[in-house]
């Protein structure tokens, strides 16, 4: 009876990539619930479409690359990409928007670079940005939070939502009620003090901190992120750095709530894609910086970029752009943020030649 010849270590922790991915999926549930509660079935439908497309395309690519199908599908990475994209897209977006976005994410952003682990850019964010640039109308049409629906208009149910997403399903045109997001509101604010704006806009006046619905969606993602942190799926460095720098920037430019203000730190932290970005996008290990020090820099710069683009750019939200820009910078950050190794006086640089 032949004995196995293997190198150490022989023991292995009961942990695998699939389990990590499943945990990530689980952690998105609070956010999805909040989105559904405040914006209807749209996000769930997005996710369903994106997941179907992503997993099928992943399977197709694996077949083309002649890789064992189930082994690679079993890592759930395509599903995570699809779910994150579905959560980031406006609910009730037309079906083809979702299909194009998820196809681009899987085919171009992920597999053309070599598949899982080799993609320099976050696939979900690549898909999102492609859509944002190509279809700005569809991508900026966020449905109004359900509590803010006009009197007499009922919120679309699951079937109506499907009809909105797939217009072919309905004999007549069904439209969603859209409304400005908190970030839109601030972007288009002209001449109103922050206090006045909060008073006059039901989106703010009926909310606690940062816009009706949005604040809860962000808090839900924060909760999911905390779960992942507690389970040590990622370290705190990148998300905390991002949120801190974003909050600091917002505080710095709050301008005491004048008409030129870009919004309070709380508004920035709890609106738009902040929490989804901080805990589910920025923490993507494949595309972020590697060392803890690097992740602090990486996260902080994403926070700053987010604030800059939100405040002075032409798009209302900016997490996706900031993440992609910093994905570019991650390898550079890695070169200069090696940790100090045991027995060394100071950290080295990756670009160093022989000692």
């Amino acid at each position, binding site marked *: 009876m032949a004995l*196995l010849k293997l190198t150490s270590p*022989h*023991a292995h922790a009961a942990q*695998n990539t699939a389990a990590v991915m499943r945990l990530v999926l689980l952690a998105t549930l609070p956010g999805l619930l909040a989105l559904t509660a405040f914006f209807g079935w749209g996000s769930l439908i997005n996710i369903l479409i994106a997941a179907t497309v992503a997993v099928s395309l992943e399977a197709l690519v694996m077949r083309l690359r002649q890789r064992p199908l189930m082994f690679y599908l079993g890592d759930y990475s395509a599903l995570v990409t699809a779910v994150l994209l579905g959560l980031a897209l406006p609910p009730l977006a037309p079906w083809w928007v979702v299909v194009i976005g998820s196809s681009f994410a899987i085919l171009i952003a992920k597999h053309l670079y070599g598949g899982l682990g080799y993609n320099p850019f976050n696939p979900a964010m690549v898909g999102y940005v492609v859509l944002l640039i190509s279809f700005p109308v569809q991508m900026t049409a966020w449905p109004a939070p359900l509590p803010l629906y006009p009197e007499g208009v009922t919120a679309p149910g699951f079937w109506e939502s499907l009809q909105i997403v797939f217009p072919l399903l309905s004999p007549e045109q069904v439209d969603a009620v859209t409304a400005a997001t908190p970030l839109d509101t601030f972007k288009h604010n002209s001449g109103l003090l922050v206090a006045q704006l909060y008073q006059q806009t039901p989106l703010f006046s009926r909310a606690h901190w940062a816009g009706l619905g949005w604040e809860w969606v962000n808090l839900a993602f924060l909760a999911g992120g905390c779960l992942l942190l507690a389970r040590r799926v990622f*370290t705190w460095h990148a998300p905390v750095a991002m949120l801190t720098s974003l909050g600091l920037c917002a505080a710095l430019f709050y301008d005491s709530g004048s008409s030129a203000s870009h919004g309070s730190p709380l508004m920035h932290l709890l609106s738009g894609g902040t929490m989804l970005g901080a805990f589910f996008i920025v923490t993507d290990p494949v595309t972020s910086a590697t060392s803890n020090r690097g992740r602090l820099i990486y996260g902080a710069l994403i926070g700053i970029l987010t604030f800059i683009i939100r405040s002075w750019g032409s798009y209302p939200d900016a997490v996706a752009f900031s993440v992609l820009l910093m994905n570019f910078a991650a390898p550079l950050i890695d070169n200069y943020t090696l940790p100090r190794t045991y027995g060394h006086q100071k950290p080295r640089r990756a670009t160093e030649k022989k000692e």
Partner: protein
Amino acid sequence: MRKIWDLVGGVHPPENKHQSVQLPIGHLPLPDKLVIPLNQHIGAPPKLLVNAGDQVLKGQPLAEPHGMVSVGVHAPTSGTITDISDYPIPHPSGMSARCITLLPDNRDQWIDHAGVADFRSYSPAKLLELIREAGIAGLGGAGFPSAVKLSARKPISTLIINSTECEPYITADDMLMREHPQEIVAGIQILAYLLGEPEEILIGIEDNKPEAYEALQPWLQGTNIELVEFPTRYPSGGEKQLIQILTGKEVPSGGLPADIGIVCQNVGTTYAIQRAVCHGEPLISRVTTVTGRACTINRNYQALIGTSISHLLKHNGYDPQHCARLIMGGPMMGFTLTSTDVPVIKTTNCILAPSREELPAPPPAQPCIRCGMCAEACPASLLPQQLFWYAQSQNHERLEAHNLFDCIECGACSYVCPSNIPLVQYYRAAKGEIRKQAQEKIKSDRARARFEFQQARKEKEEAEKAAKREARKQAAEQARALAADKPGTAPGPDDIVKAAMARAAEQKASPEEQRARLERGVARAESHLQTVEQRLQSIQREGNGQQIEQARAAREDARLRLEDSRHKLTELGTTSEVMERVQASPRAALEKKVASLRERITVTEQKIAEADDDNLKAALQSGLAKQLTKLQEAEQQLSEAPETAPATPAATSDAAAAAIARAQARAAAMGSLSEADKLRESIISLEGRIEKAKAKLDEAKASESEHVDALQTGLDKLQQKLLTEREKCAAFAGQAQAPCAPRQQPAAQPVAEPPPRDAASAAIARAQARATELANMSEQDKLRETVSSLHSRLHKARVKLREAEAEGSEHVDALRTAAEKLQTKLAAAEQQLAEYHS
């Protein structure tokens, strides 16, 4: 309570230690045979002391330490040495190595041995020698000779006893501490004495061994030994990690704990040292854990070194059907054994026979998603994911910048990797590759240095040769010039010189004379060719292969000569014209030059007159100015020419020429001197030379030059020569009845004796002649000369070779090679010559 530092990173694999601590340390029945590998430690293998067939007693040295980093090996029991040859040893590669096979006689009879009653009465050096002789190498895993580790040259402030045993499953140290705390504490005191009583003595122990802690505690009362407990986390037992946990210090990268005043010893080693020092027992057994679910009994044994693993397993209900892999060591850093027929060695702390469920085969690796769990687990604060990336792409520079060589291969990164990537394997491979490349680089650097040195030497030799050639050439030219100046008074009794001078004079011969000479040469060559051809035909009839070859070569040679002669004859027409021009007097040339310049000036003046462009005019005028200056110069030269022209070109004061002149003068003088005078002269000169040689020798001795020997030999020779000269002189004096009186000997001198030629002057003359000859020769002539000289040399060489063969001389080979070389050279020269003609 002592401050404990935190271990960076680390993991918590299931400990699985409880299974093997249920029973005390057991003893196995003596196995049928013991196979004791000679080299069980890091360092030089020991020197064998026994032969197959020898009877040995328990504890008898089988091999003694050989070299600085080496330890001995001892007989684990009494019996017979049956075999000393290669057997598989426990090694990750599964390799074989030299082993001593011992057949126990079952009497287990000890050799006479006694411990040291009071180790403090011995010097540390003596005790270290004792530890070295006892064969003690680190029992923790690496097997580094303990005596070397304990003879630290730097002051040691902290002694750390490693009782951590952080690897899962292993309980050998735990059980040892439980059962032998007193001996261990005594051992620690010996270590402390050896290290000059360090201020701090710490025993580091993980908090999962409370029994061992309790057992040790009482024995530490009244000592300065501190037992420090810290949280269990793998790999806190790594030497560097333990030092960090207990002292907060870090061993510098590439350094040793001794560099920061710390020495770390394994608790098992401490026990072995105590046995060796206090009881005189060498290291012949160790505590080994046998565990894993493929064994029904899990426990520790005091196993004799050399016991085969199968013997250990047999007594533990080992079921091979359930065992997927057999591990020596723990599940984190142990290595797999491919056979149970390998022996227990000094570093065997555990035999782990896990069931398939316990340690399942690793699943296929998934892509790295750079999750960073490995970096969190790394106790050395490396970035394993980056290392993996660069190891895959074999980017060695990046690997080194990421401190690959600070990786202790603990396996924590692989353990936590969610993608099941065998990271440590990649690092081991990369390290091996880098080490290999570094060695190859050293090798190639050496080769390059050698090559460059050789090139430099060759160039130097070439330059020296060229300088010599130049000097010879100048000497030859000088000689020729002298000969041309005073053909009648040319000194030197040598005919060759005369011949050379005659040849040199030929150049000045009139074209008519030359033509006549050349025509004669052609006729001679033709007749020579005819004779050669006749000879060839006759030889061909006889049919001797070698002779035919020679004759053919001779014919070819003759033919070439004829052709050359004819060629020269045709050439003469053109050369005579050239000669005319060359031989024209410098005055005529100058006159011509002046005339042509005048002509050009008039042309230029005309052009200036005609030119209407200012620029052109300016340019022409400047040209005219130059021409006028030239004309002036030429006229000046012309006016001087008549005075200098008739004067013979002054002999340049060339050193070589001077030397030749001196030698010639000497030769001439010698020729006219009487024998006795010559002897006297010779004696005087020898005395002078000896004086000089002595002075040189003294100088060399003073400066300790490497040439002293050579100089000494030279001096001896000179003295010898002087002696013989003096004897000769004395004999001569006896003959002539007049002791060395100058100018009285010629009468007594036998007339028959030809005038002796001084060897030196002859050589000089020959060299001159040859140089002149060569200088006068055309390229073709030279080649032909070479060919004929090679012919004769080859012939001589063959004759010598034949003689040598006949005598059976030892030089036959050398001669043959020389002859072959000559033949090759000849062929090359002939080839060249042929090419020249074509």
